[in-house]
Structure formats: C-alpha cells, structure tokens
C-alpha cells in the first residue's frame, strides 16, 4: 500500500484498503476557521442537538484567520460564534484573534503548534488543508456538513484515492523554489490532472527541501484537483514535529513497489522560474517569457507564500534595492512576523531590508487579500491591477476585483518583479 492507503487503513481499522473503497475513517484532527467554523457549528447543533458535545475536545483546532482585520460586522459576529462555542464545549485549542494566542493563517500555524503529526488524519474546512501532508499526515479539505458530522462522530466516510507519484530528483538551481516545482507540475498535469487522487512527492530533490518548502508543494496539490498531497516523513520531519509536540505518533511509509495510478519523473536541475498566468494555476509560462507584463502590485503572503522562508527568499532579492511598485507583505503567522525581526541577512533583519526597499507597512498576520474578502481587506484589488502574488489561486476576482489579473509566482520572482515593475526572472537581476 501507499502511505495514503496505509494511514486510511489504520484509521478505519482495516488491514488493507484499495483505491475506490468507501470507508469510515477516524479523524485525528478537525481544523476549522472563522469562515467555515460558524456554519459547521450550526450543522453540528442542528443535527446532534443544542446540548450535544463534540466527539473529542482535544481533536478540534480552531484557528480564525480569514477575516480578522476588517470592520465587517458579520466577520466579527462569526468570531463571536466561535468564542461562544469554544466556551460552551471547553475546547482547548482555540487561537482567539482578540488575545495573545492569535496565530494567523491556519495552515502555517497548525504545524507550528505541533498539531500535525506523521501518520495521522487531518480534516479541515479549507481546501488548502492538503498542506499538512508535507509532514506525512493524510490531510484533506472538507465542507461544513462533513465537518459538522465529524464534530459529532469523529468519523468521516472517505473514498480511498488512487496515488499519483511524483519523483523529483536532482539539484535545485539557484533562484528556483518549491513554488516553481509545484507550478511546473500543475502546469503539466492541469487543474484537474489529479482530481480525486493523492499526489505523493518523493525523490532526492524533495528530501533536500526544508519542511516549509515541502508545505508549499503539498499546499497546492488541490490546485491540480488532488484530495491530498503527501511526503514521507524523514529525520527532518520527525525532528520538526518532536520539537513541537509531546504527543506520540507512529509514522507510516509507502511499501516499496506500492501500486500507483501513474508516476511522473522530474530532473529539477533542468527547471526554471515560472509563473501561472491569469486565470488558472495551470496556465504556466517561464518568468522570462512574461517580461513584457507590467506589474502594478506585488503581494507576498498566505499559506502558500507567507512563511518565514518565503520572506527570506524575497529579502535576498530586495536587499539594498528599492521596489518600483506597490509591494504588500503579509506574514502568515505571529511566528513568521517575529521571524522578520529575528532573522538577519548580513546583520540586517528581514524587516529592515523590506522597509529600506520601500514596501508598504507590513500587515499583521491573516489570509488578507489572498482571497479578496471584505471590501476593507488589506491588499484587496479594486480595479484593473496586475498583481504578481506568492499565493495559490489566480481565478477571476480571486483577490477582489474581477478586472484585476493575478500572476502566481515564487517569492524570488515576486520580489524581482517588485524591483523592476514588470515580471522578472530572479536570475536576471540577482
């Protein structure tokens, strides 16, 4: 069996499962946030009764992150719904935006907090829940109804996905990042190329990636339609997890020769910086081929591109230079925000490098303009802006305005484009 099949088998009590089997799987973690949490709670209460108790308070994690820094009244009402439910149910893992516990973007915070453990299952009311497969968990996005069901029962009916295996070998070229790898893959297989499948990433190039960079790859599995992305845990994974949780866990690994639906091989040494042009993540082009595209705004943030290493990449490009266009930085979490101060390049903190480069005042952690959001959201587009963004989706209207155009790119490419005002291959200015 593959790692995905093994986790699903263990959590369903079966010794063997095969792709296509419909099985009841135990939820290790149920993750929700301010946009889908209130609806999930509504379903839980409607179906199980107002006096019902959640299946296990220890297994529910609530990380509000979407609409935090807004004057929108309903957004605040929704966080209040979460607060009331957490109090009533006695839930220990609620990271309240009004308090010191607030973290920011759930998919960056969940592993930071030690809630992601290899071999476990994670269900989250957000499509980018597939991020957490980077640590060897089965992790997938679900809707409110399924989440309400899990809240009451701790289980979910899951169809076992066939696995597509992506073997990435070779040495990463300078200024090519994990974001480029996943944009290449999505560009090759298409936005429905992995529909209903598990995308398993392996190979020496994956082994050499940091945990954060692995998260970037698994994060975008859903943009190819996948149910989950997954990477076998290694020594780096175990060290990362053990530093963040005292809970025991038992990793699982694909059997050698486990049957997969298809295998794709890449020599990453041959890959170059790419962008996804409007309006689909599979609309791949070399960054160099888009140098005529004039840029109005650069956005660095989100669960895909707002991690500390994303800002390190951007800072390496921006150091000692000035941005030519409006450049918006949104650290994904409080930990990342602090990392901008604590992390230095040649004695200068990332924050100092960015401020000297003339970026807009750095926003507090949240999903912000990645998905548009309420009208007053930081960085939201309102006109015909052309945006280069380290986020995950370039759909029409995704960042707010239906008329704006979003190019998805790595932090290197986004930063390089900020300096020149047009889409720029980072190798051309490094």
């Amino acid at each position, binding site marked *: 069996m593959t790692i995905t099949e093994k986790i699903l088998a263990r959590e369903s009590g079966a010794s063997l499962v095969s792709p296509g089997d419909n099985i009841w799987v135990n939820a290790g973690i149920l993750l929700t946030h301010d946009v889908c949490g209130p609806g999930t709670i509504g379903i839980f209460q409607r179906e199980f009764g107002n006096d019902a108790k959640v299946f296990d308070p220890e297994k529910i994690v609530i990380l509000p992150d979407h609409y935090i820094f807004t004057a929108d009244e309903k957004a605040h009402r929704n966080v209040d719904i979460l607060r009331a439910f957490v109090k009533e149910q006695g839930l220990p893992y609620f990271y309240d935006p009004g308090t010191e516990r607030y973290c920011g973007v759930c998919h960056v915070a969940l592993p930071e907090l030690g809630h992601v453990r290899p071999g476990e299952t994670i269900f989250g009311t957000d499509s980018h829940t597939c991020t957490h497969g980077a640590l060897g968990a089965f992790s997938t996005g679900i809707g409110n109804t399924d989440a309400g069901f899990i809240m009451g029962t701790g289980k979910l009916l899951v169809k076992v996905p066939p696995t597509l295996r992506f073997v990435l070998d070779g040495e990463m070229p300078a200024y090519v990042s994990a974001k480029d790898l996943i944009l290449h893959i999505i560009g090759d297989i298409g936005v429905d190329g992995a529909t209903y499948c598990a995308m398993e990433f392996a190979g020496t190039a994956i082994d050499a990636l940091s945990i954060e960079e692995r998260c970037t790859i698994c994060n975008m599995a859903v943009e190819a339609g996948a149910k989950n992305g997954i990477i076998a845990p290694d020594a780096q994974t175990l060290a990362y997890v053990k530093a963040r949780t005292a809970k025991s866990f038992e990793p699982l690994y694909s059997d050698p020769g486990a049957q997969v639906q298809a295998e794709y091989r890449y020599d990453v040494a041959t890959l170059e910086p790419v962008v996804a042009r409007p309006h689909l993540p599979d609309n791949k082009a070399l960054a160099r081929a888009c140098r005529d595209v004039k840029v109005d705004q650069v956005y660095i943030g989100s669960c895909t591109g707002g991690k500390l290493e994303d800002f390190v990449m951007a800072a390496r490009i921006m150091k000692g230079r000035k941005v030519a266009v409006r450049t918006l930085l949104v650290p994904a979490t409080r930990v990342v925000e602090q990392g901008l101060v604590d992390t230095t390049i040649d004695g200068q903190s990332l924050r100092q490098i960015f401020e000297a480069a003339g970026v807009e005042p750095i926003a507090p952690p949240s999903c912000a303009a990645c998905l548009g959001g309420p009208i007053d959201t930081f960085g939201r587009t309102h006109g015909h802006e052309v945006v280069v963004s380290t986020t995950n989706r370039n759909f029409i*209207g995704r960042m707010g305005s239906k008329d704006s155009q979003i190019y998805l790119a790595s932090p290197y490419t986004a930063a390089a484009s900020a300096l020149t005002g047009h889409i720029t291959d980072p190798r051309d200015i490094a």
Partner: protein
Amino acid sequence: MPKDTLIRGPVYVLEDNIDTDLLIPACYLNLVPTIPEEYRKLGSYALAGLPDSFPKFASNPDGTTPFPIVIGGRNFGCGSSREHAPIALGAAGAKAVVAESYARIFFRNSVATGEIFPLESQTRLCEAFKTGDEAEIDMTSNTLTRLADGAVFPLKPIGAVAPVIAAGGMFAYAREIGMIKK
C-alpha cells in the same frame, strides 16, 4: 434534497473550470449558511463572481434564479472547500448541475448537503445548449432532453454516492445505516 426525478426548466450555460470564487465570491463568505436569512442571501449572490458578460443568474426579483439547471464543462466547482458554493446554487433554487466532470470537494459538498444534484454528462454540453434553452432531466433514465427539438443527451449513472443522494445527504444516510442515532 429535491426528491423529484424530473427537473424541467431553462438552463444556464457555463464553461470549463467554473471555480468557487465565481460561484460565490469571498466577500460573501461572512454569511453563515445555517442562518436562514443568510442562506437566502447566499442564493441571491450565486454566480455573482462571473464576468459581467454573463447574464445575472439569480435574476428573479426575490433573489432566486429562473434557471433550475446549470450546465458546465470540465472540473466544475474547482478551488475552495467553501460549502457556500453548492448552497448558493441550491438556495437560489437551482436543482441540478450537469457537467462533464467535477472538482472533488464541490461534488462531495453537493452530495453531503443535498443542495443540488451534481450530474455528469457523457458528452460535452456547453456548446450544445445556450442559456435559456428549455430542458428536462430524467434521473430514472439518466438523460437530459433539449425540449425544442427533443435531442436526448445521456448522463452517467450516479455511482457510489447514489445511496447518499437517495437518502438526502450525509446525515440522512448515516442515520439510515445506523452510524448515528435517528
């Protein structure tokens, strides 16, 4: 969950890769679907993310849609896990989507909520229909008929999720098989 096996009315025709931001833009995700007034509002914003070249979907004065059937191409509902997407269609009064293929979470959410039938066509229909064409879905014979000329388009059998759809959604199904108390 609509129990009718016949769905009849004008169709609303879309394209490939209709994503969840088109189905319900994120600025409306502050609405909570389990609050009845906000459920209705979500319906009035169904497909509000489409470019202005498309006719308004929820165009009835009461915020519902005159189109009970939505026709799409490949990968319908790609993107977010927001259940607001199938809910918006259902709350607007749409009964079924007929598409060549679906994004996984949208399909699952459609089935789990029972808000709309996510039906799959055996052939591409985006060019065979234009918005406003009268059509009829027969879920017993798995067909979509264009009423103007009687052309019949076969649908795929609903498959493994048929029992969940027949029960009327995830909770009804789980009660039926004894997973949770009635």
